[in-house]
């Protein structure tokens, strides 16, 4: 079902963990839907110098979280903002159709963490960036 690349990231996820006092932090998803992702950023001179994540979710959710951290580490904030789900899934050699909805977390997580960074540091928030939604189960 999953590509070798996906399984590699599930087996050995990159950049798992947390960053104390992160410059940007975001949490997206919903435990009721089975996927939650947390993203920690360390930012210096407009560059993501360190990044960590934690994920509660299926193989696709873990692999996309892991892959996206690899893709944006060392990149500028603008470059990070331009990373899309599509690019992440492509870098993983694709995902099964019914798993595509699990891959949106990666992009959302980055954007939520960047929103947190911009707003905490009183920087102008780029257009379209939104605060991460609070994670709560309805029932």
């Amino acid at each position, binding site marked *: 079902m*999953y590509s070798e690349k996906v*399984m590699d990231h*599930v*087996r050995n*996820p990159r950049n*798992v963990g*947390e960053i*104390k*006092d*992160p410059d940007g*932090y975001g*949490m997206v998803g919903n*435990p*009721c*839907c*089975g*996927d*939650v*992702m*947390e993203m*920690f950023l360390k930012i210096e001179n407009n560059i993501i110098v360190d990044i960590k994540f*934690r*994920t*509660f*979710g*299926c*193989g*696709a*959710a*873990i692999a996309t979280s892991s892959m996206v951290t690899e893709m944006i580490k060392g990149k500028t904030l603008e470059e990070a903002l331009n990373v899309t789900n599509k690019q992440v899934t492509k870098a993983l050699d694709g995902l099964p159709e*019914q*798993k595509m*909805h*699990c891959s949106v977390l990666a992009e959302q997580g980055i954007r939520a963490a960047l929103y947190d960074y911009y707003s905490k540091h009183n920087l102008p928030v780029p257009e379209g960036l939104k605060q991460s939604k609070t994670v709560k*189960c309805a*029932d």
Partner: protein
Amino acid sequence: MDFIYLDNNATTPLNPVVLESMLPFLKEDYGNASSVHELGRRARTALEKSRGQIADLFNAKPEEIIFTSCGTESDNYAILGTAYLPENRHKQIITSKIEHHAVLHTVEFLEKQGYPAVYLDVDENGIIKLDQLEKALEKETSLVSIMYANNEVGSLQPIEQIAKMCNEKGVKFHTDAVQAFAKHPVDMSKIPIDMLSLSAHKIYGPKGVGAMYIRKGVKLFRLMHGGHHEKNKRPGTENVAGIVGLATAARRLQNNHEEENKRLSLLRDKLQTALLNNIPDCYVNGMNAARLANTLNIRFDYVEGESILLHLDMEGICASSGSACTSDTLEPSHVLLAMCVPKERAHGSIRFSLGETNTEEQIDKVIDLMPTLIKKLRSMSPLGHKSNK
């Protein structure tokens, strides 16, 4: 890699004795059971012998057994075949919330055609509530369909009581016994079950063959049209090799069911106790139910089921989950939800279902592995520990 196969409720490995019994009908005795010549007669003899053997297991008559292509087909025939009888048009049908999709989706299909349907609730152990059934039976009902044993958590329903309640009301009763057949023998001379579905591939037989017990006198609307096979009820050239395999598998298992159930429940309980003792925040779904001896459905807070399965798979261990995101709905297992397991916890549930090939050594390996695996996944999870953001 040597697999540790703990997914026997999904399907079972074909037993070598069963395979052996099938081979003549895949090789030299390939005749069509409807043919008049010697090869045809040999096939017919094997077919009727198998029918008699299955009937014996139920203390029933051979003419009360028909062969089908699978458990799903048997379920469909029992439900649609009853509902489509002219006298049953648009009469109420009662089932439960924890049925296999073969039953659930069939009843939902009828509901869309204007048949009122009742889906009985279950308690936290996955057992239906008899008072609710009694109440539902006050309305004119054509059929009650309640599974014998649930495939996800293993809960055994009070089939004898249900059958008697239906019988008193003159309502037909069908049970999907796909998971219980040959493990929990049923004496049809004692329990008034009208129809029962079974399948070969859950009892170490081949895939793609099933059967149905239909009590003498029970009428069904014909769904398939063709030749005069299976008492005019189910046309199609009989899968003789598969049917012989089904009969061999059923006899083997039922003759040995007490011993095997005991062996499996010891192994299952060992696994269950060890996981509960060695892993914090884990719970058995259906812990206090009368349960299939081989089934353990267990949930681990803060981790997701599929990620557990993938990590087990890396070690050659096969299990399963009612994982949500394989479906489009994001909903976890309908069975666990009906048992009032909260959604976020249902997502962390996995099922170990043991079978005759499992050894204590294999179970010990799983017991060794699980605590580390869950710990790793929990350390990767944003849930369950206060983050220092």
